[in-house]
């Protein structure tokens, strides 16, 4: 606690050296797991982003809905698009539209916000992403299960944050 001995540079004890080696190897393993999974794993963090203004994005979503709308639920359009580019908009305090996807098909899901930050969270799957205004984040997604999933906002976005829920439908 008080001053160390004058010469404190001394060799490591065998146990210290062993632990240092084991811990270092573990840290290398931790580092390697991510690139390994990047190449071999089927779940990776999306890395495609476009710059977009909120107005442009809102227009893109409107066009998308017009093309593929199949119904409405609680005032929100339900859209059943073919595999390919699919658009979802987040705003205080709503996800827009409701997407109806097919199991086993691959979609380029675009998410963006037209006001502030939101959090895209599919439950009970538990996949989570950030949604920021000005950024069109493309999540290439292939549903492997069918059913009705909840789409929850999990980034605090104001007083009605906890009311910002929607659904994601996946048909067989």
């Amino acid at each position, binding site marked *: *606690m*008080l001053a*160390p001995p004058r010469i*404190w540079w*001394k060799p*490591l004890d065998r*146990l*210290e050296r062993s*632990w240092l080696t*084991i*811990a*270092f190897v*573990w*840290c290398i393993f*931790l580092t390697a*797991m*991510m690139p390994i*999974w*990047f190449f071999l*794993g*089927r*779940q*990776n*963090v999306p*890395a495609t982003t476009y710059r977009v203004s909120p107005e442009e994005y809102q227009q893109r979503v409107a066009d998308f809905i017009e093309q593929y709308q199949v119904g409405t639920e*609680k005032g929100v359009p339900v859209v059943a698009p073919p595999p390919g580019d699919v658009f979802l908009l987040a705003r205080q305090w709503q996800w827009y539209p409701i997407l109806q996807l097919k199991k086993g098909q*691959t979609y380029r899901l675009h998410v963006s916000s037209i*006001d*502030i930050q939101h*959090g895209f*969270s599919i*439950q*009970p*799957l*538990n996949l*989570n*992403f*950030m949604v*920021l*205004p*000005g*950024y*069109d984040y493309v999540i*290439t997604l*292939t549903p*492997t*299960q069918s059913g009705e999933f*909840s789409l*929850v906002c*999990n*980034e*605090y*976005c*104001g*007083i009605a*944050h*906890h*009311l*910002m*829920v929607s659904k994601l439908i996946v048909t067989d």
Partner: protein
Amino acid sequence: MAAEAIPWSEEKAVFRTCPVTGLKVDLAAERLIIANAVAAVVFLLIGGIFALLLALTRWQVIHLLPPDWFYRILTAHGIDMLVAWIVFFEIAGLYFGGAVMLNARLVRPSLAWLAFALMIVGSVLINVIVLMGKADVMFTAYVPLKAHPVFYLGYILFAVGALLALGLFFATIVVAKAEKRYEGSLPLVVYGLVTAAIIAAYTLLSGALALVPAFFWSLGLLPNYDPGFYRNLFWSFGHPAQQINLAAMVAIWYALAAITTGATPLNEKLSRFAFILYILFINLGSAHHLLVDPGPGFAWKVTNTSYAMYLAVLGSMIHAFSVPAAMEVALRRQGYRRGLLEWLRKAPWREPGFSALVISIVIFGWIGGVTGVTIGTEQINMLAHNTLRVPGHFHATVVAGTTLAFMGLTYYLIPLIFRRELKLKRWATWQPYIFGLGMALVSIGFIAAGIQGVARRHWDITFAQAPFPATIPGTVHLALAVLGIGALIAVVGGAMFLIIVLVSVFTGKRQEARGLLLVVTPSSPPAPSTSAEEGEEGLRPKGTFVLVLAFLTFFAAYYLSNWWLLGRTWIVR
């Protein structure tokens, strides 16, 4: 001890000599340590009351606060704990390490009082503006969610005060060396605090880069503030801020180990190397807050979250061995050499500093560290981002780890710096166990709920009033109940700490300290038994080695099971 010190300037510092350690204590430094420690504890009390209200709201069955107050108090709780309580305490620790432990005078005490005033004004401003409802933006205040300009101003004033205190700390050490107040190298505890201070310097500068433009943006003077840039700058402040807490906590671990068991670092070279790893590599690790953000690509995210953060993790793993090993060797030297763990069984468990130290290490490592590295893995973060797993992780590190260690140290400051008798000693013996148990349950409750997808910063996870309600499994309610009960226990532990400290400081007998230990009296070592190992072999930290191997096994199991969980979700790229 230093030969005759040669003061530089005209400053007349007044010293007293500590009857226990023989250290020369600068009275000006002592007053500032007391002021900052008292401010810290006041904010701990306020933040703690908020914690109780929040836990009783997230415990869905009780759901105490209405939504606007929940979000408001969540904002205030984050700031009062992560910014006010912890930084005020760390500044007190810096003055202790830089001046008292080096027999030195604190450079320019008047400026230290200015720093204190700035920090008080800043934290009061933030609390007031938040409680007035003008800044419901969370501790992170992500742009474009906008708060009243006074919110950002409060943050900035606090940071300027802290930067000033940092500068005085560095100056104090430089002057102490020049005036030959101490000989040889810095003691390891002070070395650790210097590490924390260096990280604090670039942390606060990053904070300025993030928050000063935000201040101007809130005034309407800056038209656009890119939300992605803000998040990057904020976390360049926000995560290293946690590393400051980590480095300070580890320094205090060494101090508590020395005080309670007479431990000295086994290998100064290794421990110092581990502290240097923190300085070099933690800022890059902040990327783990941005792993599922649009913008940065795989290479940026993985590089910054891994080689950089994992080398900082290596630093922690070194201390995880070195601190217990130092205690094991010290206790073995006292005669407890039987088997692998006699030293642990016969250790001073009734001494509050010792139990606080051990519980801090165990919860910080086994829950905090393991979950942190796991959810900070690029792909696994998709399962965890913005769920309750995140607060589960950081309550294990900052509260059960750092705060408990700081509480442990505070007990010793009462006789040594406040120069009062510690009262309610039986309470002090129990307090670390109660607080530790409560916080362990809080973290476990958070993590169990988060693994099931429950969002953080969310008022109603049953979505009762939402347009598309979702059914919540009963296991989520169970996890939130564990959280609630844990919080009640932790609040009892926190209240015990506050009561012990306040009762001692205000009604304890004014007396000079007589020894380092508070509760346990130094006992005579046991008679050497024939089965105990003799000589150098009996002193080696084999018990600690087995314990860290067990820790690593648990770590590996938890980490790998998360990859398995990820593999069960949809295909995503």
